[in-house]
């Protein structure tokens, strides 16, 4: 089937198309430069056309999501939409059900999402959910930062075996890249403890976060994985943690990248939570200027923000100790899920309120990060969904970024606490994002960071993943019409995925099954076998599941999209 | 093999209990649950057989209570609650002492006498049901006979099992829908 999108205003930062009026053509799911006269014409005259969104960090599938849904029926009830047309019933606000997740991303014009934390032991569960979520391509990142085998190898400095282990495990659990969460802290949480900073060793293992991050970063580049290490550093949410954040970024500076696409060697996730100065919650203030300055001076770093949206949401992270602290703080029901030999995780409902000074300053820090990092290719749009806010709030975040007027209003009308003025520099920043920058932080840059060459842009040969919004970029003033921006970015005029129209005028009109993106490292099969042989005695002794039943069977990945990588050799 | 005739229980000869005063009827607390014999027999699928009647249709009692009632292992007794009555075997409980409580494994026999009241929490009251127990000469029924007797599914002469059925909406009325 051939289509032509006529006369849209196209923003395609990867191909340096900045608001040009032009046609976008696609055939059989791919962007092409010419179509036959039979092509179906879709008139999008003067409307905003972008590649479909790429979410670099979101929690949408997996065991802790399901714990969240299971134990928050009151949240499930909030988002109920009856079944209608091709869509099934939706439930959930901060932790939507799987079908709702797919529909809602589609309505926002998104096409690809990275599921940011997959415990390898329960990877089958994550993949089951990926199969239920419709309309997206999903890349899950397995957790390696507190894995006992990783800890051992990092302690020994055995990068060769670590690389082989990771390459084998990625294939075993069908994962895309290396996720590290509070390295050593997750293991310490096995004993109800935490680690503080990079040099606090995990109990018994006697290995520090510094060693773990370094080892994994080296292994990552040795294998030439498409994504860099994806780091959730230590001390999340603690006042004064920005020093740990800076140290963590400095740590990998010396490691040279091994990829032709991405620039970074470390992706710092939800950096907002890691940019706090002060010593306690009373003298807590923003350290975003320091962190942003470092990012501006170092192109080996990318980060996503994790913007607070001031909603009642559900926090969930593999950072178990931090969630327990949060529970102690707000007293709301606490869920925890420790995974043997691999990771921890925790969940707590949380009400971010503009009336609270800390939450307001957190809100400001996120926006500061967006506005102070100069290069939009280094900072990505996320709310660390659902931690800082559900992903359906992306349009609202976009409206804040595009409108200094709105931000000023919020501060002056006391929609946020007055502490924002004292404890952050937000009120002094008047930068406003343009559409090209929005397209960069929500599409092009995340795709580049993950080495997705087939999406995130509208070049010839790319997947026909396209979003069209009912916004006329040449007529609208986003600074004033921020409400229109929010509404329209939430209800795409068209969402096209692989050449199929999934959303029309904000309504889901077609439902297609999702696909799974994973990294298949080739070329070190012999090393892998040797390593597996070595770890098998420990595996059999300490896991409660047989190795044969550990792996993710093909049954769970019916629509795989393997990214083939030659170990050590950067792909084209 | 996992087949047994009946669960193995402590084989206590009816003993003298100086403090026990023999009574014809005891009031106690009924608990239900599962044990390994009942579980094995049920899930193997041997529910029509005599084994199931012994595994599931047995009231496990404290020996003191047994002495009071004057029963020995595999005697028969009638258990009554507000919800129904059923004849079961009695046997010495492996979990004794629990004077004042009887334990009947879950199964069709226990079902007759437990309370269906959920108190809005979806779970019927399977444990802590006040009950009386008295000696009986009747033989506990086998599963199929018990089901037929209690539920009368295919007894045409029984019109209703006591429901309040008034009117079920007729859903064939497609004219109701546009």
């Amino acid at each position, binding site marked *: 089937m051939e289509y032509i999108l006529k006369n849209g205003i196209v923003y395609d930062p990867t191909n340096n198309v900045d608001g040009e009026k032009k046609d976008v053509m696609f055939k059989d799911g791919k962007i092409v430069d010419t179509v036959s006269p039979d092509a179906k014409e879709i008139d999008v005259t003067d409307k905003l056309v972008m590649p479909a969104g790429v979410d670099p960090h979101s929690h949408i599938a997996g065991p802790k999501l399901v714990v969240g849904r299971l134990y928050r029926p009151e949240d499930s009830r909030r988002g109920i939409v009856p079944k209608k047309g091709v869509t099934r019933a939706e439930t959930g606000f901060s932790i939507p059900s799987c079908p709702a997740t797919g529909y809602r991303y589609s309505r926002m014009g998104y096409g690809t999402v990275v599921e940011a934390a997959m415990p390898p032991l329960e990877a089958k569960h994550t993949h089951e959910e990926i199969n239920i979520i419709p309309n997206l391509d999903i890349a899950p990142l397995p957790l390696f930062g507190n894995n006992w085998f990783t800890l051992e190898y990092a302690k020994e400095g055995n990068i060769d075996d670590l690389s082989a282990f990771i390459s084998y495990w990625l294939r075993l659990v069908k994962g895309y890249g290396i996720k590290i969460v509070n390295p050593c802290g997750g293991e310490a949480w096995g004993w109800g403890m935490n680690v503080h900073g990079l040099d606090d060793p995990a109990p018994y293992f006697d290995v520090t976060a510094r060693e773990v991050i370094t080892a994994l970063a080296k292994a990552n580049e040795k294998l030439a994985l498409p994504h860099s290490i994806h780091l959730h550093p230590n001390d999340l949410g603690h006042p004064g943690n920005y020093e740990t954040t800076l140290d963590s970024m400095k740590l990998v500076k010396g490691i040279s990248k091994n990829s032709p696409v991405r620039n970074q060697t470390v992706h710092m996730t939800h950096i907002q939570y890691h940019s706090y100065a002060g010593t306690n919650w009373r003298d807590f203030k923003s350290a975003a200027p320091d962190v942003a300055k470092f990012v501006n001076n170092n192109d080996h770093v990318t980060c996503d923000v994790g913007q607070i949206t001031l909603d009642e949401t559900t926090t969930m992270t593999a950072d178990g100790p931090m969630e327990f602290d949060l529970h102690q703080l707000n007293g709301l029901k606490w869920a925890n899920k420790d995974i043997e030999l691999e990771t921890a995780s925790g969940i707590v409902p949380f009400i971010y309120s503009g009336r609270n000074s800390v939450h307001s300053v957190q809100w400001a820090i996120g926006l500061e990060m967006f506005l102070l990092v100069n290069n939009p290719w280094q900072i990505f749009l996320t709310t660390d969904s659902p931690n800082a806010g559900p992903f359906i709030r992306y349009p609202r975040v976009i409206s804040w970024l595009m409108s200094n007027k709105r931000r000023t209003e919020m501060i002056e009308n006391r929609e946020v606490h007055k502490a924002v003025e004292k404890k952050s520099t937000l009120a002094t920043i008047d930068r406003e994002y343009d559409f090209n920058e929005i397209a960069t932080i929500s599409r092009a840059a995340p795709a580049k960071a993950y080495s997705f060459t087939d999406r995130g842009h509208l070049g010839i040969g790319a997947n026909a993943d396209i979003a069209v919004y009912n916004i006329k970029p040449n007529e609208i003033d986003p600074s004033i019409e921020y409400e229109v921006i929010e509404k329209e970015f939430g209800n795409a005029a068209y969402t096209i995925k692989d050449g199929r129209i999934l959303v029309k005028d904000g309504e889901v009109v077609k439902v297609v099954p999702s696909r799974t993106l994973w990294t298949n490292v080739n070329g070190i099969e012999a090393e892998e076998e040797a390593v597996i042989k070595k770890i098998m005695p420990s595996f059999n002794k300490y896991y409660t599941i047989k190795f044969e039943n550990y792996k993710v069977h093909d049954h769970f990945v019916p629509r795989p999209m393997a990214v083939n990588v030659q170990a050590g050799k950067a792909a084209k | 093999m996992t087949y047994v005739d009946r669960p193995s229980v402590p084989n206590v000869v009816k003993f003298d209990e100086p403090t026990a005063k023999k009574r014809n009827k005891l009031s106690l607390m009924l608990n239900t649950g599962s044990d390994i014999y009942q579980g094995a027999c049920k899930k193997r699928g041997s529910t029509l057989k005599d084994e199931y009647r012994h595994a599931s249709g047995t009231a496990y009692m404290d020996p003191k209570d047994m002495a009071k009632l004057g029963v020995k292992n595999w005697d028969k007794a009638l258990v009554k609650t507000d919800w129904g009555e059923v004849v079961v075997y009695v046997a010495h409980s492996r979990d004794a002492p629990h004077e004042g409580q009887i334990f009947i494994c879950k199964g069709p026999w226990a079902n007759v006498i437990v309370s269906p009241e959920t*108190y809005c929490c979806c779970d019927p009251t399977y444990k802590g049901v006040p009950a009386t127990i008295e000696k009986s000469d009747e033989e506990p029924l086998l599963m199929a006979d018990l089901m037929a007797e209690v539920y009368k599914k295919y007894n045409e002469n029984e019109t209703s099992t006591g429901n309040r059925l008034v009117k079920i909406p007729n859903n064939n009325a497609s004219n109701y829908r546009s």
Partner: protein
Amino acid sequence: MKIVTFNQKEISQIGLEFDELIPDKIYQWEKKDFEKYEVPIGNSRFPLRDYFDVDVEGSAESPADVKIIINGDLTRVKYIGSAMSAGEIVANSSVDLHCGSEMSGGEIIVNGDAESYAGREMTGGLLTIKGNTREFCGASYIGDWRGMTGGTIMIHGNAGKQLGECLTGGEIYVRGDCDILAGIHMTKGYIQIDGDVTRWPGGQMQGGSIVINGKLSRLLEGFIDSEIVKNPEVSGKQLAGKYIKYTGDIARNGKGNLYLDAEKNRNFL
């Protein structure tokens, strides 16, 4: 003033759901609208006229001008007055689940018993139950830590288990007896029980007040600092007589108050 009278013709075994027949939605309806209306039963909708004759008198400008009278056996009619914000409903029978749940204003009078979940998540208004009610009266939705936040529930008979679970405001009065765990998890608000209470009122309560004028059988260990108070004033209400006042539930660092009638509960002194 508009008076809408429902007279029952037929009882349905499968519950009717009345959540759409509240003053907020029907204040402009005429008789013919009710004739046309199909009421949810199970997975389908059936004409209301098969089950109720509806008479309409007068007219209304706003929901507040509406009075709904329902006659018949309503033990299979759920969600009466659910989510209403104004007006009045009189049910001349015992009613089924969720009567007055999520109501924010107006008044409901039940001349009979109410099944469980009466007044769940109320935020305002008055719910009067002339008979007994059952579990979770004035409770929260399962999982939510914010239950009833406002309004008043008057129960002339007895109440079941977990009365006022997670109460976060509002007042509940029970003239009769009350089953276990009244006011469990409550954080604010006021519960008064004139009859006897079985076990464990105020389990894990963090705030608010419970007054028990009858006899209590068992109290939890988490209630401490007992003192005798005379004619205390509790949430703006003047009580008469001698009470034992407890603070709890300390098991959850609670600062709620439990007042026990001292005369009837001498064994606690």
